[in-house]
């Protein structure tokens, strides 16, 4: 498999605080990678740097070898990187269908936009809510709407920021099925998630961060047994990583 995304010594400082410190890793096409770490570990800052929503202080981010750093945000999206937000950001006054039509219009999609938007909604299991105001959706449906909006940009790489946050067990199950389907369709995924048990069922690789740096990178079970991860992320209780 070819390398799709490369983070090369990405560093992000806010004054005296180094939120992301010399992070280097790559993601292969078609892979599903989990990004874990305690609160404040730098996951979301890294996420923002990877998607063009923040500029690293130093280092580089490349998609298929092409740097994303000097691109405007919409061009990063156009180049194939899409994201969702930890706190969902629907267009609340627009119907669900219109939410998904916006990226199609912005991307210059030809043809019947409504049909295509319905297709994307169908893909995440939200077609039956197409006409609903997005402000009336449940948290779980909002997460799926965000995913649909990201998918409508036709991404090569989809970054999901805490997709399970705030969801019930049942909603997590439904969303997990949706993410599995995306994987089956060949979408490359990076998923930031605190609910480790649910995450490990979706990814084949985990990158663990602590204090802005990568402390472990590999197969999920190996990473979860890594002493540095146990100490930094799980507070020394290696057996409790399925608590969520």
């Amino acid at each position, binding site marked *: 498999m070819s390398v799709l995304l490369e983070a090369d010594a990405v560093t992000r400082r806010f004054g005296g605080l180094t939120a992301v410190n010399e992070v280097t890793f790559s993601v292969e096409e078609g892979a599903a990678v989990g990004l874990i770490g305690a609160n404040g570990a730098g996951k979301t800052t890294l996420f923002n740097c990877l998607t063009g929503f923040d500029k690293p202080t130093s280092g580089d981010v490349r998609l298929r070898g092409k740097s994303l750093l000097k691109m405007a945000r919409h061009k990063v999206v156009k180049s194939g990187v899409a994201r969702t937000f930890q706190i969902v950001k629907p267009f609340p006054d627009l119907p669900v269908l219109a939410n998904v039509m916006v990226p199609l219009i*912005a991307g210059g999609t030809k043809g019947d936009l409504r049909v295509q938007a319905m297709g994307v909604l169908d893909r995440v299991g939200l077609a039956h809510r197409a006409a*609903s*105001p997005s402000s009336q959706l449940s948290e779980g449906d909002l997460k799926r709407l965000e995913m649909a909006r990201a998918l409508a940009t036709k991404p090569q790489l989809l970054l999901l920021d805490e997709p399970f946050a705030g969801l019930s067990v049942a909603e997590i199950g439904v969303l997990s099925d949706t993410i599995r389907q995306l994987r089956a369709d060949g979408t490359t995924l990076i998923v930031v998630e605190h609910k480790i048990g649910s995450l490990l069922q979706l990814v084949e690789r985990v990158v663990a961060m602590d204090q802005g740096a990568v402390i472990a990178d590999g197969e999920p079970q190996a990473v979860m047994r890594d002493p540095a991860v146990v100490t930094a992320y799980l507070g020394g209780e290696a057996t409790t990583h399925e608590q969520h």
Partner: protein
Amino acid sequence: MTSTKVAEQPAAPSDGGSGRPSPLKRLLRPNPLILLALPIVLLYLPRFVDNTTLLQQIAVATIFVMFAASWDILSGYTGQVNFGHAAFIGTGAYTVALLSKYQPDVSNELALLAAVGAAALLGLLIGIPCLRLKGPYLALATLSVAGALVQLTFIFKTQTGGEDGIAGVKTVIDGSLTNTIGEGLSKLVLGPLTFSGLGGFDQYIYVSYFVTLVFMVVMVGGLMLLGYGKRGLVLRSIQQDELAAEAAGVPLTRYKLGAFVLSAACAGLAGGLYAQVRGTVALDLLAVDLSLLIIIIAAFGGAGSIIGPAIGAYVVVLLQNYYLDRATDLFVEHPELKIGTFALLLIIVLIVQPRGIVPPLLQRLSGRGSATRAAGATMVEGGGAKP
């Protein structure tokens, strides 16, 4: 590699049947028959109303329709609230007046084009630095520009006339296009015999009336096509959440700046036309009062719908310029009370109907007022923003 699959379209879903009034209704494209009825009524109104003072005030209100609609495509749609819209209006008006004064050979039509260009250029110059401003900072910045232009008229008092403004601007009757439109429609509506009986001031009133109507229909129609089309949907997404719009791939700068320039150009055209209707320009066309009145009109009618501010302009301007003066001498003696009255009226309207009076009214007239058909259902069925 992965791309969105075009799936077979599932059946059109229901609106959820919540039964509650929904903000989505403003997304509904108003019934075209209702939209057509308004200009047709206005077109034939002079046949039945021989009160030329009222017709003159309707012509002024028609120009305010253009002011409000041009404000709405920027502020109502993208959420960049402009508190200095008079800057664009005044730029258009003064461009026409200065050309009339110093280059009298320039045709009225060319002068209007120059007004559009000057206002659009100002919109670009203001729009670029304003891209990063939001809320009160944007409001103050736009307000300041209008204030700065007022000061410029004093600095160049010899040319602009300062407080006195510029009189003797070539009017709509002096323009071949505007006069042809005005005379043609006057004859169509009033008949040649009636029209030949008119002369001087009355003829000017009728020509002004019809010319402003034609310009308004073209401008408002064009803005509505944009606003209710797919570009309008993108503009609305920016208003809802800029970050989410960017994540959806929306080129924010292009859309925001484009809305700024379009809004300015339309306001410049309306301002220039106003100068040709009045025959004079003065500082009231750059004043804060004018900017505030436009915001009141837009909020009263229903910002973010184009048609709302348009109808709101007729209600507010006719009340202000015609009916209130006839209701009591108080407003004649203290005209400054008018804007206060409208501010109070606006507060009441916004409490009762936060999205303005027009969009809900149009939904009811279109038979979409019962909450059984929300905007989403209409879009799924093929209305609203179409490709």
